[in-house]
């Protein structure tokens, strides 16, 4: 069946419908990872967005359930050039077609994804509609596109009650703003007991649980929409509990400490972004997925200093908070999909907890 991707600038791509045939309006973003589409699909940070994969051959190895970064896929839509008709991998549990259908995610294949990516690169991220209605009316569609909002996505993706990964000598409280599974797993395999809390848990509850460290997770949406969460993070900042934050968590910590965030033209989404550790000069390749960033100009040098920058565009990729056991990164040390080069940051976090205990 034919499907259409209609962008707010009036561009229309015609392709084939994949997954669910329902109509959807979403923010269209592109991801440049060449592998890891199951992880991308199940990353809650993509809630409220439709993802274009720039790599043209998607679905080659199907979907393996144990690779899922959360319990279900989150994007509003999935846009690819070509879906493999026959997955091939010893771990493959389900084909990508069946996976999308099972979770009722609409999508489109057979379009020139490179042309689409170039539009998004030139004009910035846009709102778009995926529809199978051949008789769509452009003006009506454009009106509909205006109704798009990403508000409330964290409520949608965060868990409803706390869960515990038992065992280990360090107790970590992980705030779930839309966390990827591998954050908890990375801590757990390093000997942490990880308690995962819903996004709207009060700071008091966390503090009272007396954790050795707090982890702020990634998540979807505009960080500035998270006003109540930011208030709780301020309270956490004022304790002396070691804190490590990733992605949205990093942005929220920055906002909680007086800095500002900006929406980027088209963001960083991929598994190939070089980030430089300013202390050592060493460059790591990182997984990234963000459309907002911390505005470097607004960082109070007495509160935090830039720890990592993006080599390509010089943007802030991590902060070290002064006189605090707090550091935050914009990228994803938990990888999945993507390189494991910055996994050592979890070790750094654990060392921070140990030092605190021994102090």
């Amino acid at each position, binding site marked *: 069946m034919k499907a259409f991707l209609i962008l707010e600038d009036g561009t229309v791509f015609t392709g084939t419908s994949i997954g669910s045939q329902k109509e959807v309006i979403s923010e269209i973003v592109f991801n440049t990872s060449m592998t890891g589409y199951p992880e991308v699909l199940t990353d809650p940070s993509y809630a409220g967005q439709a993802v274009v994969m720039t790599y043209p051959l998607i679905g080659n*190895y199907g979907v393996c359930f144990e690779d899922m970064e959360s319990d279900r896929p989150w994007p509003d839509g999935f846009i690819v050039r070509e879906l493999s008709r026959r997955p091939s991998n010893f771990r493959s549990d389900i084909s990508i077609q069946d996976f999308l259908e099972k979770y009722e995610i609409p999508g489109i294949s057979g379009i020139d994804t490179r042309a689409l990516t170039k539009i998004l690169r030139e004009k910035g991220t846009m709102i778009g509609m995926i529809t199978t209605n051949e008789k769509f009316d452009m003006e009506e569609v454009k009106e509909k596109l205006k109704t798009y909002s990403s508000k409330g996505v964290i409520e949608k993706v965060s868990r409803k009650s706390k869960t515990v990964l038992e065992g280990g000598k360090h107790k970590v409280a992980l705030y779930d703003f839309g966390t990827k599974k591998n954050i908890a797993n990375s801590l757990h395999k390093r000997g942490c007991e990880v308690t995962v809390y819903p996004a709207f848990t009060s700071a008091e509850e966390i503090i009272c649980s007396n954790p050795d460290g707090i982890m702020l997770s990634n998540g979807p949406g505009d960080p500035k929409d998270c006003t109540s969460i930011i208030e709780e993070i301020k309270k956490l900042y004022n304790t002396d509990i070691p804190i490590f934050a990733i992605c949205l968590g990093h942005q929220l910590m920055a906002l909680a400490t007086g800095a500002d965030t900006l929406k980027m033209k088209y963001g960083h989404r991929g598994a190939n972004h070089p980030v430089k550790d300013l202390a050592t000069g060493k*460059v790591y390749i990182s997984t990234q997925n963000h459309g907002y960033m911390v505005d470097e100009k607004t960082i109070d040098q007495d509160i935090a200093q830039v720890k990592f920058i993006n080599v390509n565009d010089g943007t802030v990729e991590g902060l070290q908070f002064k006189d605090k056991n707090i550091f935050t990164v914009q990228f994803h040390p938990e990888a999945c999909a993507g390189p494991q080069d910055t996994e050592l940051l979890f070790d750094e976090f654990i060392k921070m907890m140990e030092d605190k205990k021994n102090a």
Partner: protein
Amino acid sequence: MPKNPDIKKVMVIGSGPIVIGQAAEFDYAGTQACRSLKEEGIEVVLVNSNPATIMTDRDIADKVYIEPLTVKVLEKIIQMEKPDSILPTLGGQAALNLAMELDESGFLGRNGARLIGTTSQTIKKAEDRLEFKNTMEKINEPCASSMVVENVEDGIDFANEIGYPVVLRPAYTLGGSGGGIADTQQELMDILSNGLRLSRVGQVLVERCIAGWKEIEYEVIRDSKGSCITVCNMENLDPVGVHTGDSIVVAPSQTLSDKEYQMLRTSALNIINELAIEGGCNVQYALHPTSFEYCVIEVNPRVSRSSALASKATGYPIAKVAAKIALGYTLDEIENAITGKTFASFEPALDYCVVKIPRLPFDKFIHAKRTLTTQMKATGEVMSICTNFEGALMKALRSLEQNVDSLMSYGYKDLSYDELLEELALVDDRRIFVIAEAVRRKMDYETINDITKIDPWFIDKIAILVEMEQALNSKPLTPELLAEAKRIEFPDTVIAKLTGKTAEFVKKMRMDNNIVAVFKIVDTCAAEFEAETPYYYSCFGSQNEAMPSAGKKKVLILGSGPIRIGQGIEFDYCSVHCTWAFKNEGYETIIVNNNPETVSTDFDIADKLYFEPLTPEDVENIVNIEKPDGAVVQFGGQTAIKLTKSLMEMGVPILGTKAEDVDAAEDRELFDAILEQCEIPRPEGKTVYTSQEAVAVARGLGYPVLVRPSYVLGGQGMQIAFSDEEIIEYIDNVNLITQEHPILVDKYMMGKEVEVDAVCDGEDILIPGVMEHIERAGIHSGDSISVYPTVTISDAVTEIIVDYTRRLAKALHVKGLINIQFIVSGEKVYVIEVNPRSSRTVPYISKVTGLPIVQIAAKVILGDTIKGLGYTPGLHPSNDYYAIKMPVFSFEKLRGADISLGPEMKSTGECLGIAKTFEEALYKAFLGAGVDLPKNKKVIITVNDADKKDAVSVGRRFEALGYEIYATRRTAQVLKENGVNAIKVNKLNQESPTVLDLLLSHQIDLVIDTPTQGRDKTRDGFIIRRTSIETGVTCLTSLDTANALLTSLESDAKENLTPIDIASII
């Protein structure tokens, strides 16, 4: 970290002659690195024995030594030039080994030089089998278990420990001879005992067999700060067991999940960190197809064929970045030249699929074993880019120029099901065609996968292509079906064949329905950033990104495709220089080529690069977009010449010599008329189409005769026939392969062969030099030792040659280059071949004469005259040097190939010997080709009857040099009768010890074996020649070559070789 200020003068070591396994990729890497060093103000001293390379040009390096790559020669050059640093990571294994020896002996330290880009410790850790194993164990990276054994009992014990099957690899045998896979103890005993005997050191490696696992490669790059990235990963369609150089390779990997991909990526990073490499590195893995188990197969701590492929596949210039890292820069300081916005620390992201297919030489060596093993056999490769795998595969297939345009190109229709199963189990270069046939017969993927171990994903892609064949064959050709066929890159001609329409009809239907090829950019970043470098590939069903620029005049330069025997790196040299020359003249240059190993496909050589097959349809797609003002075909070998007619039909003017004149040189009758008009004699001969005609002509001329198809390069299919039977067999063979052109039958003349390259401006000619061949006519010019200036040719004959060249060039209206081969018999000169285009000898003669021939030709093509450019027409005066071009062969890599030389070209590369005296030049040339005598002073001589008389003086000369001479019965008898002390040895079918036992005693330095006629593989000579090659003994098959070798050995020049900076030759 900025550039290290202590580095001012760097010596770059090249990889030497092109052989199988070490080819043009090192010219590409070396050239890129030298340019990158010079950009930084570094003085570059280049050493490489290969004169056909671009890296040995005076505009690439400051000092250029085309000298044998030996420790002694390098030491001498280092003492002369006093470089502060040596960069050895760009010249393949050859350069690494030399660098390690120079460093470990303390020579570098004593002479104030050091290695950059690597250390000898790093090289050792990666190259020494035991150290490598220990290093991998230290960082917990698994390798396939292995052990070196010296007797069968130890082998059995070890095999029992690791389990069967095991792989056996004898040490120091070439071409994988004596090795194999043993499934049982009995097989192990058989193979192992034979392997131990063949090995010069009596050692065989017993290794766990991981054949059938997925083969995955990573290209990694690291700087001095320890930052590292992977440039690209690649997956071999052919599982472990086939050398990656012989495998169909796809980039990026297709069947790996992110978990597998990252597991191996992390491993590759661990390895490069542990080896502390500062530069590029290649890591090869075997990955179990149904688990996360993997083994590190090999690590190359340098740039490689794979890194060249990765560079072209991604647009990331690995060699350039490696050179900058060697100077002290870090990845985040090196700008990405393609985007101009990102840095070398950004990992490339691809938004297309790349397929590489090897170019195997079985069309040349029809008797060689086609089986693909861990010993590489390919001479070159093609790469193609498309937005889908099927399309990339189809484009790569037709880029091979092996009469293949689809998966139907080899017929397996007549095989029974069981035969097909057998054929599937055969691991050779036609396996994907067999799989296609299996799919056509509805064999299920599991069965095919069981037999071939090829991942079902690839089998499914082959099935998609087969389904399209069937659809085109059975369904009406609708615009939708046509669009889909084009999306997966079915050429119009194949669609026409399958639908019963004409190619013109298909094309018109495409145009009517706007189904046209568009071009996309290779930009390293999947469109995330704007690209500044126009590096294009085509696809269908997408939006076009290639924007023709306005203003400048545009020239289309057709490249020479994959490296093959007969069409090597020389033509890339010519294409690149032609591009630069046109650039200098203010043209916008557009290169079309499909060879990832070459300099011409580097993204900054031409203004625009189209990485495409060189077929009329593919070229027309480019012409439609670019509308060039003209095309140059005379520099891209036969590949480009073949496109002449199609280009004219597209309305593209051919710059330089016109197509009809090219035809006149190739068409026998037209050419005869021209010769007659010029009053130039040629050996008598006629054009025929059938074997009856051929026999009649041959009888008329008198045997022996030379038979060959017209329109060939490298003497392909050329043979000397001595009888009616040989002619008939020959014609039948040729007719097996589609023969559109007639066959030539000429009187075979024994005489001296002489060759010239010349530039003609329509009026005057400029001959840089006349080259004389050491071997008499009958051996292909590409396989002969070529001497400049001539040694035995009289001034009168030289004058005739110059005169004939002038007459021919003018009669053929040559504008640009012409190559002519002559036979000199007494004082008479005959023309045997004329090629109105660039030739194999152009780079060599340019370098040794200091005349930039390609540039001159390019200017002449654009209207300059030889006089106007300041040159005196005629033969350029020779300088004070003798320059000898020595062919180099790769026989040890091709089991079953007959090494005896003849009219069909067999060499893969060449090296140069240049010196003030003929003898020294000859010695250098032999040394450069790896002939380094004496070791044991023992030689075996066995010659055919015709050569027996001439063998006497050869024997006498070896005797005088103190050699012990062994000879087979009749040869020994003749030698003895003439006072040469020869020891008689038994033939193969006689009692032991035979000549074979003698060879296997590993005491022989040299075998001289001139072949008897006919290609009977069971003859003794064939077996002797093969055994000597496989045990690493030099084997000569022409007495002319043997005499030349003697001349070099007799001279005292070898005691004191003088390196010559050819950049200083005026």
